[in-house]
């Protein structure tokens, strides 16, 4: 862990709070830092200040002032023109053209078509090259999902940034980060009052019930065989229902002045597709998957990044300590898969080989509300939501959930964008 910190410090020049929270899962953090470092600093088609500016654009879509401030500093540091920061209209036309893609990726990636890609690539003065576009798309999706993580874990501003001068430790809710650095490493130390409340019997039951359900599903899978139609409708139902899972809390999160200037059109938010009236065909992962198609495309146009992302997805998807709250040696693969597929389901991505009935059994409502909020409208996430799901799970486990959300979201956005690019190319 110390080496990781040292490395992160050496590359970023700071030890940011995202790193401090992610270090719950050092294996993932390492891959995450490597990827981020490669995207921002290493050889790539885009100039350095463009990269940071794109990061700012992406984070600003979700009003994530934390990331925006961080990258405003970096942007200026690499010699970016401060004028650009006054709004997208002050940036070069080339970046302005990217605005539309940014909006769609962040909120409705399924609407991206090959025409959008064509628009960006068509030969004129401000056009993008394919390699640049891939780089930009990866950056956009990276920062969209990182914004989700920031809000999902309630990352507080850096000490040197505006609003960072508080004594509130950079924390996952009220979990004090000092504990980690003071040597209680790893995961097991957190019996020390998770969320500060004595686990009520009711919430203990929650875990038990969840595990019971998993066991049941495992066993009865072979016996109970749903008909094909049933399976299809289950997906549709889940997709539909995910629309109505809405946060009841409508507190506006504080968007700083800084951030809003990057918006052209704040009204453009996550719109649920079926509610929106038009029918969007389901994206079938068997026809365009990351492993087979996305990877090849990215790696072709932006060498090594495909590999890095592949590793990161892989680590996030397979990460497990075989624990669930106080229980040890639990096979959590089913739960993890349910979360992953639920997020993809919200984006209309369907796995033919998955029974979407499982999601309903495993994920309760408050958890769904949390996932949906963090993934689709991260700026609306509140601490209450964070506290109210999976009440007696460890913080590290909640961070783990967030990592799943982050990566699943990133992959979903990437899949849509890359599919459009592939279609453009053929």
């Amino acid at each position: 862990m110390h080496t990781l910190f040292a490395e992160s410090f050496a590359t970023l020049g700071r030890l940011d709070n995202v790193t401090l929270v992610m270090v719950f899962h050092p294996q993932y953090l390492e891959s995450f830092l490597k990827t981020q470092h490669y995207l921002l600093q290493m050889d790539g088609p885009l100039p350095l200040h463009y990269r940071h500016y794109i990061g700012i654009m992406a984070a600003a879509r979700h009003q994530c002032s934390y990331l925006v401030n961080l990258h405003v500093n970096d942007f200026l540091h690499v010699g970016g023109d401060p004028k650009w920061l006054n709004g997208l209209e002050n940036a070069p036309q080339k970046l302005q053209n990217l605005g539309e893609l940014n909006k769609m990726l962040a909120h409705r990636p399924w609407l991206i078509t090959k025409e959008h890609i064509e628009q960006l690539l068509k030969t004129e003065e401000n056009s993008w090259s394919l390699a640049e576009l891939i780089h930009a798309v990866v950056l956009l999706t990276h920062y969209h999902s990182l914004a989700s993580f920031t809000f999902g874990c309630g990352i507080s501003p850096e000490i040197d940034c505006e609003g960072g001068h508080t004594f509130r430790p950079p924390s996952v809710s009220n979990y004090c980060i000092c504990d980690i650095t003071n040597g209680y490493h790893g995961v097991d130390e957190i019996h020390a009052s998770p969320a500060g409340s004595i686990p009520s019997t009711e919430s203990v039951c929650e875990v038990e019930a969840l595990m019971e359900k998993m066991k049941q599903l495992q066993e009865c899978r072979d016996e109970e065989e749903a008909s094909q139609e049933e399976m299809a409708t289950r997906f549709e139902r889940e997709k539909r229902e995910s629309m109505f899972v809405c946060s009841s809390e409508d507190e506006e999160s504080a968007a700083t002045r800084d951030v809003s200037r990057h918006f052209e059109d704040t009204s453009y938010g996550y719109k649920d597709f079926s509610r929106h009236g038009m029918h969007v065909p389901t994206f079938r992962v068997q026809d365009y998957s990351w492993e087979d198609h996305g990877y090849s495309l990215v790696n072709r146009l932006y060498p090594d990044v495909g590999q890095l992302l592949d590793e990161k997805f892989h680590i996030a998807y397979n990460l497990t300590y075989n624990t669930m709250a106080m229980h040890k040696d639990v096979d959590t693969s089913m739960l993890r898969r349910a979360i992953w597929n639920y997020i993809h389901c919200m984006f209309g991505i369907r796995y033919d080989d998955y029974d979407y009935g499982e999601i309903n059994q495993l994920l309760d409502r408050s958890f769904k509300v949390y996932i949906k909020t963090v993934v689709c409208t991260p700026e609306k996430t509140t601490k209450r939501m964070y506290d109210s799901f999976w009440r007696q799970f460890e913080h590290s486990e909640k961070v783990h959930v967030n990592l799943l959300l982050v990566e699943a979201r990133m992959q979903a956005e990437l899949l849509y964008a890359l599919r459009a690019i592939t279609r453009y190319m053929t």
Partner: protein
Amino acid sequence: MEKMARVTTALGGNALTGRTMFCHLDAPANAISVCRDAAQVVVAGRNIFKIYSIEEEQFVEKLNLRVGRKPSLNFSCADVVWHQMDENLLATAATNGVVVTWNLGKPSRNKQDQLFTEHKRTVNKVCFHPTEVYMLLSGSQDGYMKCFDLRKKDSVSTFSGQSESVRDVQFSIRDYFTFAATFENGNVQLWDIRRPDRYERMFTAHNGPVFCCDWHPEDRGWLATGGRDKMVKVWDMNTTRAKEIYCVQTIASVARVKWRPECKHHIATCSMMVDHNIYVWDVRRPFIPSAMFEEHKDVTTGIVWRHLHDPYFLLSGSKDSTLYQHIFKDASQPIDRANPEGLCYSLYGDLAFAAKESLISSDSNRKPYIGDRRHPIFFKRKLDPTEQFEYISSSSALSVFETDVESGSMDWFVHTAKQYALAGRPLAELCDHNAKVAKGLDRNQVAQTWTMLRIIYSSLGTVSSTNLNHSMGKGSTALPLMNSFNLKDIPAGLGSESRLDRSKGESRTENILMDSSSTLINNEDNEETEGSDVPADYLLGDVEADEDDLYMMDHENPHAEEQEYSLPQEAFPLRHEIVDNPSALDHLQDKADSPHVSGNEAETVSLTPVESFSLISISHSLYENRLPSDFFNPIVRDTLLFYAEQGDVQMAVSVLIVLGERIRKEIDEQTQEHWYTSYIDLLQRFQLWNISNEVIKLSTCRAINCLNQASTTLHVNCSNCKRPMSNRGWICDRCRQCASMCAVCHHVVKGLFVWCQGCSHGGHLQHIMKWLETSSHCPAGCGHLCEYT
């Protein structure tokens, strides 16, 4: 027709005939498979499951297996396979993890026979046993392979790969019990069907998923695999360790591989992304496909040879919803289009030329090259007597032509690059310095250009007129060659160039007129400086001529014979007319309207014999007329273009850097970038790293500037344990010691650290230098013979 006859014998009377043809499917295909008799093909995809019969001229739809009003996911096929023993038996792998068998002999419309719902994830591949009727194998995303006996309701045995998703399973064709499975993590496993507990052997074949594999139909030990890393590899499995015997690098991830029947070394591949073509490779010739089918407009998802013993018919299905039959005759052969000759210049002007042997020998017989020393080297491939295809055979010859040592010498380039000053001093000094450098190398034209530049730019605006006079005077002392007013002296000294003078004289006539008139304007307007100006004008005018002559010398092709001097003669006047005249002339003609000028026409004539004031005199005089400094930019630009055109990109770039803003806007970005890249490339080929870096740093082009921002990482090994230092900083992770100790004084080195790349030992630059003066061994005592250069 001869081919056809051969096909007939090969198939024992069942000749395949047909042409390249296709039919539209209603939906993208995921996989295809042929019936044993090569007369029917089944196409399966997410929304399609049909059987077509292959007629002489077309595909005819025979049967649609997708029945029912609301087709279930069981019809959504990832793979399909037709049994090679029983023509009524088909199996499909569904995306929802179900394995379905189909019996075409069923009387009802629905031919679905059995459903195996044992896999939890998508089934990627199904495979029938080549000789056993009832044995079916499946490989799935969940990491399991299952073997089914079609007479039973459940799987007979389950094989767990213990790693990741299974991408392909293939029964060995000769070995009854063996099958191969490929995995998403790059592994290939061999299993014995009787032992479901553990694989027989495993090896890592690719970096990233292995999408496909295929056993060689004849050679029992050969297995071909294709992966996401864009490689096709052929493994010899006869030895205890799988040995890679061939490797073909394609341009996209490989989705399918299929050995070509009857051709031992041929293999067909198609890719998963981006590339839509089907290639047939000769694995011994991995750099160029021996045949290529380019019909599809989207990725090809399934390829299959139509008949087990016929190498000429290939069927393919694609995402573009077409089914094709390709005939080998119609294949495009990239080898025909490939350029069989290769040509390359070395740094010192040597020329290497590789071509087909036949071409070279016939060519050289016809027309021997004179004056070049040739070193022909011949490479010959050993021909395989069993080779069926003639175009494979090849042998080529490589010849190296050396240029003259004298003329090919690029010393001047290196010296110039090293000595030029490009920044850090006032412009005038830089120009002077560079002029001196050029002069020292006998490159008078270049020297002259530098001097002119100094006069144009540094005298304008910034320098006062007294300074100007002073610098003029200095100029004359700095250039001792210019002590003559008489042009004729110089060509005489240079010899053999007298003819050029004539041509120059002709081309100059206009020049002279203009030049002298301008001088006179100068004289009119600026009488107090006249005394010092006029001699300077003459002086520089002379040198200009001199430089022109030299230019002829410098750029003359040393090999060219005497008559070829006529060529530069054409180039020469061109230069003067185009480069010098037009812009200046326009301006001057405006001036010619003034009475002063016309009054001086007479003097013009009198000056004519003295020849040429040209650029410099103009510059000076026009300065006195308070012309803006950018007045000369077009001329300077043309000069630079001229130099670049002549191949002296060094000059172009150097001037560009020295003049900086003054000239930058005149030349479009792309040209500048082009110059910079050429010059930097040259510098790096001469290993002048420091200078190339300086040029990169001084360049104003964005694209160039960021060149030295890339790949700035330096990887260091620990000098103790010789492992790479993963940690940033100076302490090695493994041996917990300071890595950068000076081997001589045993202190930590902070600052300049030099170390041997062989043994990783090193230390303070000074210490090591001193040490190696007396000893050739490593100071650390490791016994390594270190070298300090």
